[in-house]
């Protein structure tokens, strides 16, 4: 969500800059009775002939409400924290993405396992790694061992249950 916000803000800023400049130039040229870069007569005609009760207006208004509600929910729901606390005492945190990437690398190193993705959530005081990968379901124990080992290497707390879902590899037809 953080990246989405950043990109959306960039686009909004660019739109405001371009739109504001264009409308300023347009209005200034109109005030001076000079030819304008944009022909707005069509827009004026459309807005002057459209009534509030028309389905197009209602649809646009409904879309604005829905979009606003979607953005509001996305902004107000709790976001996944960027960091994972490892210890209550010394204020040591690990960057979540780094941990997830390291765990995914560790899982991918298990023989027969490919395309591993790992998400780490915190429930209560415990970390809950969730592993999704392609490979032999029999490799589950090895995957759990690899995750434990990597977390130990990162001085992370002992995790709670490790959720492993293995998708069997499709055989070529």
């Amino acid at each position: 969500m953080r990246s989405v916000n950043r990109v959306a803000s960039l686009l909004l800023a660019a739109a405001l800059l371009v739109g504001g400049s264009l409308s300023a130039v347009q209005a200034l040229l109109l005030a001076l009775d000079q030819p304008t870069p944009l022909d707005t007569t069509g827009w004026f005609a459309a807005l002057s002939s459209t009534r509030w009760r028309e389905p197009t207006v209602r649809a646009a208004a409904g879309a604005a409400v829905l979009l606003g509600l979607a953005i509001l929910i996305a902004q107000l729901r709790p976001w996944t924290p960027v960091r994972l606390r490892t210890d209550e005492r010394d204020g040591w945190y690990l960057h979540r993405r780094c941990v997830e990437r390291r765990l995914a690398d560790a899982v991918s190193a298990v023989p027969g396992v490919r395309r591993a993705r790992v998400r780490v959530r915190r429930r209560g005081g415990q970390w809950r790694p969730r592993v999704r990968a392609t490979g032999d379901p029999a490799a589950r124990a090895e995957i759990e061992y690899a995750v434990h080992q990597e977390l130990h290497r990162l001085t992370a707390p002992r995790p709670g249950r490790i959720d492993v879902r293995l998708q069997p590899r499709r055989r070529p037809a």
Partner: protein
Amino acid sequence: MTNAGHRLLWTIIALLLVAGGAAALAAGFGTLRGADPQAMLLSPGLLDRWRTAAPWSTLAAAVAGVLIALVGQRLLARELQRPAGSLRGTLSHPGRRPGRTRLAADVLADALVRDLTGNPGVRRARVVLTGDPPRPDVWIRVDLTADAPAAGVREHVRAAVRRFAATTDCQPAHLDVTARIEPGQP
């Protein structure tokens, strides 16, 4: 701009969208007092007033456009601005008389950064000191190499903070360390 800033900006935009959309819907269904659903979006009365007020109305539109463009430019500048790499924080100490003494914490922070990066496992470090000098808040971010032993680096950071506290006589009131670890070698 910070994440909190983005969140606030988009919450405000969302509220404006909901309020504007709901008002337009209410006007369309005739439930908004003073709004006629049969009326045009740009009513002839409004257009007449606009033409009567010309050229001031068009000049006002030009000024509004310039202001919108300025807002866009400021927002764009903030978005493209790199996070303040030189941020080191400020120590602030209340005096006996009304007022506070503020002190840039660059020198102290640089000393701790040098100590932290003395470990080969620490590729980069960033330190921010804030608060009251005898008991400052210390915020540290360390970027660790892929092969860095996390336990060893953690002990190194702890020792560096202890040395910092001893030499500057500043015992951290709050210590916050964030470690980012490079991905392992494929």
